[in-house]
Every structure is written in C-alpha cells, then in structure tokens.
C-alpha cells in the first residue's frame, strides 16, 4: 500500500492537469517544486487550511499576558520606588507587553511552522535533485503494484519527462 510514484515535469500546467486527474481517481498527491506554486495550486484545487494561524494567535495572546504579568509581578517582587511614580506604572507595561506580543507571536509562528511543515522524519523521502532546481514533481501515494502502469501512463500523457517508481516493503 505504501508504494508511490514520482513524476517529473517541466511545465507547471502539465503537472497541475496530471495532479487533478490523479486526485479525481482518489490518490493522495504531493506536488514538489523549487518555487512556491501557492496561487496556481489554489486556483486548481481551491484554498487549503492554514493551521499556522492558531499558533500565531496563541503566541500573541501568550506574549501579551506574559509581558503584562511579568512587568507587574517583577516590579512588586522587590519594591523600589522611583521618581514619585507608582510601583505598577501603566505606560511601560503597555510597551513591554507590546514587544513581548510580537516576540512570542514570531517564535510561536516559527514553532508552528516547524511542527506542521518540517516535523523531522527519519524515513528517507522520495526526492530528485532536479526538484530543487528547475523541475516540478508530482508524487502519487498509495498506489497498488498493479496500478503502476496506469498512473505512469497518465503522467506520460500529460507530459512527464520521467516517472520513478518507489516501492516500499
């Protein structure tokens, strides 16, 4: 069940057409490209979900609360009056929490991205060196051995230069 096929294309519209066809047949597809094809893929398959925003929102809220509480608690832990101002001075708290909102927002976004997109996997991944430079790949997952020929034919039909079979035990 884990077998997959990697078709290598030179043109993006060919690739998208092949991908659409495979997806309609019910296969899991992954498009590998050296440049972002976000708009083109959205155009073909519709918008996909963006879970990073939850991390960002969580980070920003955490940052704001952290900044506010941090500025308040640390100033009352060791009371040192200065300049006839209250120990809990509001304007600096606003400023500090502003900065921590941004800081934790950024860090949580990065964390979310790493978790969602780059989560380390110790299995070797299907790849081709050209996919980092100038060709576009269509990876079709979950192909039964007897269907290899069909899928390869579809890819060739749509203009794939090369089709690699990846069999897994």
């Amino acid at each position: 069940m884990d077998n997959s096929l990697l078709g290598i294309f030179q043109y993006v519209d060919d690739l998208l057409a092949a991908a659409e066809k495979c997806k309609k047949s019910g296969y899991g597809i992954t498009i590998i490209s050296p440049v972002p094809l976000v708009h083109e893929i959205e155009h073909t398959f519709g918008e996909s979900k963006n879970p990073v925003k939850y991390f960002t929102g969580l980070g920003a809220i955490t940052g704001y609360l952290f900044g506010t509480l941090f500025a308040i608690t640390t100033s009352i832990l060791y009371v040192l009056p200065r300049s006839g101002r209250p120990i809990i001075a509001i304007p600096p708290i606003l400023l500090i929490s502003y900065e921590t909102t941004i800081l934790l927002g950024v860090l949580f976004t990065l964390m979310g991205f790493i978790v969602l997109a780059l989560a380390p996997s110790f299995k070797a991944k299907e790849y081709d060196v050209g996919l980092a430079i100038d060709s576009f790949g269509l990876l079709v997952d979950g192909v039964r051995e007897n269907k290899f020929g069909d899928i390869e034919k579809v890819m060739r039909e749509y203009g794939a230069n090369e089709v690699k079979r990846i069999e897994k035990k």
Partner: protein
Amino acid sequence: MDRTITYKEASEDISGIITKTGWKYYAVLTLMAVSAVSFLFLPWAYQIYSGQGVTGLNAPVFWGLYLVNFIYWVGIAHAGTLISAMLYITQTPWRRAIARGAETMTFFALFLVSLFIFVHMGRPWNFYWTMPYPNQRQIWTNFTSPITFDVFAIGTYTTSSIVFLFFGMIPDLASLSHTATGWRKRLYTALSFGWRGTDRQWHLQAKACMFFGAFIMPLVVSVHSVVSWDFALSVVPGYAKTVFAPYFVTGALLSGFAGVLLMLSIMREAYPVMKKYVTAYHYDKVTIFVVVLSLIWSYLTLMEVVTGLYANTSQEIEHLKYKLAISPFSYLFALMIFSNSVLPLLYIFKKLRNSFFGRFIIPVFVLIGMWLERFLIVPNSLSRKFLPWMWHDYSPTWVEYSIPIGALFFFISMFMVFIKVFPIIAIFEVKEDIGIPMRKSH
C-alpha cells in the same frame, strides 16, 4: 528582471557567488579583519582596562560618539526590515532580488548595535544585569527606564530579524544542500530542517511569512521610536521633543535605504553576475523611496528646529544657538542639510539614478549626513544643559574615533564571511520573479 534566464542558470549563478572565491576576496577579507582587530578590539580592550576615562566624555556630556553610533546602526538596520516585511505583505515584486541582502544588513547592523551598547557602558562585564532574569540579587529590571524599553525592543527586533532571515533561507539552503559538498553540505542539510518543497510546505511557508511580515512591520516603527525615547523622555533641552519618534524613524529608513543602495552597488561591482538580478529597475524603485524619505526628513528637521525656536525658552534658544550658530557645528549642520535634503533630490533625474554618482556618491553622502544628524542631537544637546556653570564642550579622543571605524570594518568582514556561506540573493524568489514555466503561455 530578464525572463530569458533559466532556473538552472539562476541556481548556478547564485551558488557561484558562494563557491567561487578568488585571491582578491581573501586579500580584502584579511585586510578588513586585521583592521577590525586593530581599530575596534584592541582600543576596546584598552578602554575596558583603563575605564571610560580614555574617552572624551565629561560631566555634562555623558553620551558621546558611542551612543551616536548605536542609534546610527539601529537606523541602518531598519531598511532591511522594511523591505523584507512591508514589501512582502504588499507583494511588491522588486523586493525579491534585494530583500535577502537588506535583511543580512539588518542582522549585522543589529550585531553592531549590541556591540556599541557594551562599548558605551561603564561596566560592560555586568551588561546582563540590564536583562530580566531570576538572580541571587533578587532584583529585576526597572520597567520605567527607557533603557529597559530598549532591551526589550532591540531584543525582540534582533530575534525576529534572525528568525525572518533564516526562515526565508530554508528553501534555498535545502536547494543548495543537494549540490554542495563537505562541511557546507552538512550545514545546509542541518539548517534546511528536511525541507523538500512540497505544496503543503510552500503553503505554510507563505502563510508564516505573512505573519512574520505583519509582526515585524510594527517593529520598524516601534524600535526606533523606543530608541528615540531614550532622549525624548528626558527633560534635557534638545532631547525632550515630541517630534523625535517620527523623526528618528524617518531618518533611520533614509539612512537604511542609502545603506542598501551602497551595499548593492558594491556587491554588483564585486560580483558582476549580480548585475543580471539587481538591475536598473531596482535602482529606480529604491531611489524613489530615498527621495520620498528625504523630503519627509527635511520637513521633520524643519519642525524640530522651528518648534524649539517658537517655544522660545532660554534653554532651547541656547541649545539652538550652539547647534546652528557656532563654528564647527553650524558647518556640520549645513553639510547635513546638503547631503540629506539636497543631494537625494537629484534622484529625480532618471539618468542619475543609474550613474556612478547616483549609485555610490549620493548614498555615501546620505550616510554621512544621517550620522551627523545623530551627532548634532546626542552630544551637542548635552553641552548646553540648564545651569551655565556646567556647560562644557565635548571633543572625542582617538579611542572614540577608532572604535566606530573598526566597527565598520568588522561589519564588512562579517558580511563578507556571510556571503560565502549563505546565498545573498534569494534563489527561489528570483526564480519566482523569472516566472513559472507554463507550456501554454497565458
């Protein structure tokens, strides 16, 4: 952007900047590193050993050239952030080829910013006391202090800039890791975190970049206004001005854009292959920014002087007299106006934008002019505070001249090392600029 360039060519050109290294590069790098050590690190060691007494600082003028350079480098850092964050959000096409270089400048400029904080301190070995952390002294930082604002603002700024720079580099590093050899391969593979370029990864990368852009853009405004509050939150005439936040931010962007122009021009001369990617089109766009910022800056400079003049308090008048009417400073003020307000206007002539004069001479003058702006604010205002008995002039010593010059050499040498390790032009963004290959042309 030349659309006839192929993807392969772009990849090879840009990785060529990293790998093709001639003897000239090593000669210049050695010269810069030696200069950095002898102008920056040795005098600094001398200053740490003998104390701040080796500087020309004195009782009213406690903030001198080090603080000037601190603000100056924060300013230089700003253009990189603006180009990479704001222009990303608006999806401006001309940012793609120059954003990475500008971000790199931000990164190293912020490095120098922290360096100048340490250089400026009386007891730099205790610098970490300004950061909030649980300690055996049970004392935290004073949140009403503008210096603590600085610690938070610049800390956030540095962290976000590093994240943004390296985050944007992940696809490029993954791409390079396939062709590189030796330690480079190991480094790129480790730093690319297993990036393959799948549709999901690209999608999330674009979204995350948008969030970074949205978070970092307010920092462009907040960081330099926080730096300006080091001055504006005091009572000193010449410091306590409400116009300082926008004035500093505009000045920062002006100097930053001039810095980006100069950096690009030097890089293009050093690596002629860059001329393919950074073209007259980019100069057109960046110089327009310089003209606009220069006009805003001129207006705010006028306001800074005029508001002081109209307030007409004796302190303000003394401060303005010292700044505008006394021999060395009046000439410096005139030079500042000439190089920041007059010279950049020449960019409205299209021919000039792409001439040697427009690419090298005007940016250098703007950079000098912006340095003078900070110089005319920081030590000069302190020379004429409230009680005339304590009025005293400030004349920097050789240590204070040497350390900023050495810091510039240090900046250049770090930058030179960086371009040999990481791609200075974003490969995937350049490819995006070239256009996505389609069999049927639209």
